[in-house]
């Protein structure tokens, strides 16, 4: 057990409100890294101590009286929880709880921003953008790209959604995009996002001056011209807001797109792709990679 979790546990034990029925608990796919970062932001935003469990140690047995579980990561989200327990799940890109698989409420905090906001931001970054190609691989994304098509039409954008059967198919698929697209967007698809895939995409983007856009800071660092997404901390904070809303009896949509977005830019990638960032975009960016 590392120092941070030990401290959290100590605080939990000392706080008089700590175990107030333990109505809310959290389950992390792994007690470290990005999951812990998001949980820490959740804890800070929620304002009351919440006990967390580590799903990598095995199936979680929720304490008696738990009414709501907040899960961080796919492993934690997919575990299955007792009937009637509501579930808010975040940090699980490419995973969606099947309808009927969960008898309580199931609310997903997306790692993407809403389609309309994302596409508007891309147009702001690249005013000449008319045709956008979206690459994806996780099966669960199938039904969600319709929303991108609709949002794109409203903004005068032609959206092409391309399913990738495997990362090894990327080079061939990208070659077909030459002359047919103005930019490529990569959602936070764990089956597709890897350092090798990003290298292939970056090389293609640079060689053909077709900007690559992503959803996370890491994608910008690895060569995407820009990324419009949700930080790990914001995922946690949005989950906390959702918990408060549910506890207040409010009705929530099945998928929540966080309002606070994170914009990151890569200057050298943009230069290679012939992009010029406006002063407004530069001011708005949380990170600018050289």
């Amino acid at each position, binding site marked *: 057990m590392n120092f941070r979790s030990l401290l959290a546990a100590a605080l939990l034990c000392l706080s008089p409100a700590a175990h107030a029925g333990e109505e809310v608990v959290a389950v992390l796919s792994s007690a470290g890294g990005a999951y812990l970062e998001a949980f820490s932001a959740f804890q800070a935003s929620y304002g009351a101590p919440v006990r967390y469990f580590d799903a990598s140690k*095995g199936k979680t047995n929720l304490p008696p009286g738990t009414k709501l579980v907040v899960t961080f990561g796919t492993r934690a989200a997919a575990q299955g929880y007792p009937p009637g327990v509501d579930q808010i799940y975040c940090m699980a890109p490419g995973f969606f709880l099947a309808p009927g698989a969960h008898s309580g409420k199931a609310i997903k905090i997306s790692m993407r921003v809403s389609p309309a906001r994302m596409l508007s931001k891309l147009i702001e970054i690249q005013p000449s953008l008319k045709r956008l190609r979206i690459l994806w691989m996780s099966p669960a994304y199938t039904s969600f790209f319709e929303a991108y098509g609709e949002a794109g039409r409203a903004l005068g954008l032609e959206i092409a959604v391309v399913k990738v059967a495997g990362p090894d198919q990327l080079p061939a698929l990208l070659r077909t995009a030459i002359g047919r697209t103005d930019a490529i967007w990569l959602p*936070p698809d*764990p*089956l597709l996002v890897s350092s090798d895939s990003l*290298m292939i995409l970056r090389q293609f983007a640079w060689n053909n001056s077709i900007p690559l856009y992503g959803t996370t800071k890491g994608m910008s660092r690895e060569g995407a011209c820009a990324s419009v997404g949700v930080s790990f901390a914001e995922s946690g904070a949005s989950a906390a807001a959702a918990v408060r809303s549910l506890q207040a009896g409010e009705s929530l949509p099945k998928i929540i797109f966080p309002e606070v977005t994170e914009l990151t830019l890569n200057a050298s990638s943009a230069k290679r792709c012939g992009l010029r960032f406006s002063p407004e975009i530069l001011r708005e960016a949380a990170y600018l990679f050289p």
Partner: protein
Amino acid sequence: MRYLAVLALSILFPAAAAAAPHALTEEEEFFSLERASLEEVLDIKTTVASRTGMKLRETPGLVTVITREEIQASGARSLVDVLSLVPEFEFGMDVQGNLGLGVRGNWANEGKVLLRWDGQIYNEILYSTIQFDRFPVDQIEEIQIIKGPGSAVYGGFAELAVIDIQTRTPKSLDGSSVYAAGGLGGSESSYAGYSFGKAGAGADFSAQAFWGASRRSGRRYTDFAGSSYSMEGNSDLRPKSLNLRAAAHNTSARLILDDFSMRQRDNVDGVVLSTGATTVRFPVLFAEIARSIKLPGAVTLEPRLSYMRSRPWYENDEHFPYDKRATRLTLGLTAFYRPSSRADYLAGGEYCHDDAEIGSLTSDAAAAYSGVRRDGAHYDNHAFFGQGAFDLDFAKVIAGVRYGRHSHYGGSLVPRVAVTRLWNDFNFKAIYSQAFRAPAIENIRLNPGIDPEKAVSTEFEAGYKASDTLFFSGNLFHTTIKRPIVFTVVNGEETYLNYDRTGTLGGGFGVKYKSKGLRADLNYLYQNTHFNRVDIYAVPGSGSYMLAFPRHKLTLNSSLPLAAGLSLNPSAVHVSKRYSYGGGGTLKVFGERTTVNLNLQLKGRPLARLTLNLGVRDIFNSNYSYLQPYDGGHAPLPAPARELFLKAVYEF
């Protein structure tokens, strides 16, 4: 000495080289964990590129990967149990109770198979043999086997195969694991171990301790003269080891203390010792420090400094007193360069210094080096290697070469070329490679004029991914070994000679099925030889057979889920008839044998993080024996009989 200073500086003081840490970022780790979770939840497989960008189906070799999950589910007691399920491998009897490995029907005992355990070479450097009974299977995370020559990258022990074993990483341990096992009947295998590992904040640490006690068999051994003894109490196998690893940022250090002893009464020539059993020991120490340095321009350097100290075949008795200390100091530097997704390169150099010191109890006959008694031996070896992989539109081409120069027997150059192609759900591989077996210290002592032997191998593989759950593969191979180094006795004197040639050809197929908890892995190999010129390997009157090895081998390893956390895991090995010598120079046929094992595994019950295994090895008591793959006068050594085996593993 200068090499040592430069390498030590580059490992310990990264300012000497433009260092930029390349630990996995938090985000990379997040996506990696999410990918694994999603694959598990959705029951799909995606190929994740290896370190040099090559996927298993594109790797320039016929590769078998055995995972921890498969090893644990099979109920394997030892590495011998695990490797017996590889159709290209078959164990044979060497001397003094030690088993050696045959690869595709070729006797590969001395220096023809490389075994690495956490990067440390476990071939002892006096005779280049491996002691397969010493390894704790419960520490294993993954085994990668290259079933073919690997000298172009791995050097002079990798003539016919490479067995690369990784133990559990600190991250995968993430705490403690304690395990204990016991067997009734058969090998009466019992062992216990404790592993601890932790990773975080750019550093990690692990410690793995192991102790074991088993026997080769409880059956009776009878030599060619008719003398016999019960192997119960006379064939004890005693491994124990401590494996420590520490790493911070990009520097890692490892220390392994390992001691293994074998008790036996069949001695060197197979004749039962009248005075009782004797013990042979193989203590060894490994120490290594390595670093990964990322330079600008997609270049990564990996300098490495290793030290090994051993006392192999140590025997203190009146039969074969033997005490030689062998040490090896290795300095290595490997560079990786990946300028784009379509090309990557690796190149490197290695310097080894070997020393052999003679202990006082070694007999005079075993002590002479270079014509001067009891002087010991010292050798140096320089090696340079390089490999390039190019992703062309029609295929991926990998070309590599290694040049080594030994202070005694001179230089060896071995090239390797492979073409691999993925085409929708099909994959194809064609590989041509040369490899060599470096003469060991004792080979040179007994024949200073010995030359390295060289293998030339051609391999083909085709695979078809019928679905996400079903995969088929087939392969063909042709291996010729020129000037094989063979132990023999000339005018009553032991020596090693270079013979004309030997080798085998054949093919195999495999079917893999995996869906949710159900798994089945079926493999078959056929091999024969028409060009063996080593008479002591041959079967008189059956020119296409090699002594001790079957023409056909079929293996099955499977897992059937019965209930939540409960699975039944059958495995089986079938070998066709084998030949070996009986008493008086007569040839004997050993009929086909089928060994069937069953293991029941229960995970998470009655305690979370507890795994229980209850298994029966060799359910039908196949009466299997290890045969000697050369005409060496050793009678077949009985393998263990049926055994009831229980194991518990608890993680916390």
